[in-house]
């Protein structure tokens, strides 16, 4: 009520222009424009080194970032990052510890505050209970972290990211090394969090196919730039060719998409004969 301007206008969950993320002095993401509406499920794709992880970490203020405009959850910069849950790509060493699942999730609750937090024990127990329910892992609550399967551990890690009241989830490769069933469980839960709780989810992945039925938007990163849109807008030959600076093609079959260089993976010997192998020529076109 105190801020009618902010309440009245529909705020973007992420509103960025000219985003530039530096990693070791090198601009991994350079000049990215990004507008994500609250409650959207965005799949983030791109080759290794395209800047998927760096982008997520930049939104959390863990990587130096420059931007013409950067607003996160209605506030300038990354000041609202405590409203964002983050699940990193690699399991932290604590993720296969002796702790029981309930205690592991609880360890994150208000973890940025000093003190023992003894007086908030009831609040904490409630928050853990809700996180367990959100990820449908109530049956794992008393299990030891070191007894979980990969898929179970991934759901526990997401539950830990949800234990604080967050409005956005940044999930870095949560599907890697999981079987299709475990992948689907995580995708269904993420979709439900978006639809029912208005959670905004950014999920990086290598294979676009498992995410096709679930995500609202695709963010494709390549060569430091990116393209955000619906699957049809982004995942097509011309859009991806502009992004990569080399001809790309998209094959569709039986509901699957397959992204590949237009000349094919095997044709390198023929294609590159007789002309310069410089990479810089293609870069400036987009």
């Amino acid at each position, binding site marked *: 009520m105190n801020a009618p301007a902010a309440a009245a206008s529909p705020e973007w969950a992420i509103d960025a222009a000219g985003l530039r993320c530096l990693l070791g002095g090198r601009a991994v993401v350079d000049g990215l424009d990004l507008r994500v509406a609250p409650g959207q499920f965005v799949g983030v794709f791109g080759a290794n080194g395209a800047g998927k992880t760096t982008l997520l970490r930049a939104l959390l*203020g863990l990587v130096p970032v420059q931007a013409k405009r950067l607003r996160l959850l209605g506030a300038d910069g990354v000041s609202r*990052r405590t409203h964002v849950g983050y699940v990193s790509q690699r399991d932290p060493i604590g993720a296969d510890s*002796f*702790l029981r699942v309930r*205690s592991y999730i609880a360890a994150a609750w208000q973890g940025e505050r000093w003190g023992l937090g003894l007086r908030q024990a009831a609040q904490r127990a409630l928050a853990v209970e809700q996180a367990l329910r959100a990820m449908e892992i109530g049956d794992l609550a008393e299990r030891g972290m070191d007894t979980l399967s990969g898929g179970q551990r991934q759901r526990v890690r997401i539950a830990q990211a949800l234990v604080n009241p967050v409005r956005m989830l940044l999930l870095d490769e949560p599907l890697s090394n999981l079987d299709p069933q475990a992948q689907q469980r995580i995708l269904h839960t993420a979709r439900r969090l978006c639809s029912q709780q208005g959670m905004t989810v950014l999920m990086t992945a290598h294979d676009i196919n498992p995410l096709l039925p679930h995500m609202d938007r695709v963010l494709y990163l390549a060569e430091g730039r990116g393209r955000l849109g619906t699957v049809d807008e982004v995942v097509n030959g011309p859009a991806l060719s502009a992004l990569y600076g080399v001809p790309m093609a998209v094959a569709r079959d039986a509901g699957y998409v397959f992204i590949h260089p237009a000349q094919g993976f095997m044709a390198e010997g023929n294609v590159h004969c007789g002309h310069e192998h410089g990479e810089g020529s293609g870069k400036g076109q987009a």
Partner: protein
Amino acid sequence: MILGLEYGFMRHALAAGSAIALLSAAVGYFITLRRQAFAAHALSHVGFAGAAGAILLGASAYLGLFAFTLVSAVALALTAGHLRSRDVGIGMVLMFALGLGVLFLNLYTANAQAAMSILFGSIVGVTAAQAGLSLGVCLAGLAALAVLYRPLCFASFNPEGAQARGVKTRRLDLLFLLLVAVTVAIAVPVIGALLIFALLVGPAATAQTLSRSVGGGIALSMLLGLAITWGGLAAAYTIGYPASTWIATLSFIAYALAQGWRAWRHATAPD
């Protein structure tokens, strides 16, 4: 009277031993959690060098202990992010400290007993002032740990998640290493630089095998530390032999039993 409490030296030993056991067990819980046992080991040897240097200069051993361990803790924390391998860096510090310690002892030839008591402790030689210092540092250390508790838990189990929520993990690492340094500094003269794991790592590692919660684990670790210290003192008083030996033995037995229990449970658990 039980445990010979009518003697001043036994009262001092019990007071200092209990204080050191409680602080070591609580701090040690996070040392094992954060896999910093080697850093703690190195700090105790740095403490040995500091104590030997202080004795050589005719100062209190504690002065050297606190100065050397605190400076080393800062050095370890500052270099942590830049070293390719932290273990190698710690090993180099450890080696250099021991080299210095040997030099100090070599220069101070008057009393070989001093070296023995720093290396293996002299719990029954504790003075009233030493017991008071140990109690004071124990209370201050536990209070500091309580302040650090939530971010330390979070950062120990999920450092990247903690950073994302704004926990300054490098500053936290420094504060925690300073706490380890202080703990080591009061523990070395009592339990000995070489036997410090008996109280710093043994009870914590045993508790982490037996308890799957953080609060319960820390409480169990502190209880085990107290029991080991009291049991060791009682055995030394009634049976004989050095108290340090008894404490190390009990610490080892508790750890071995816990590991055996876990192995047995894994073998018999329905899968």
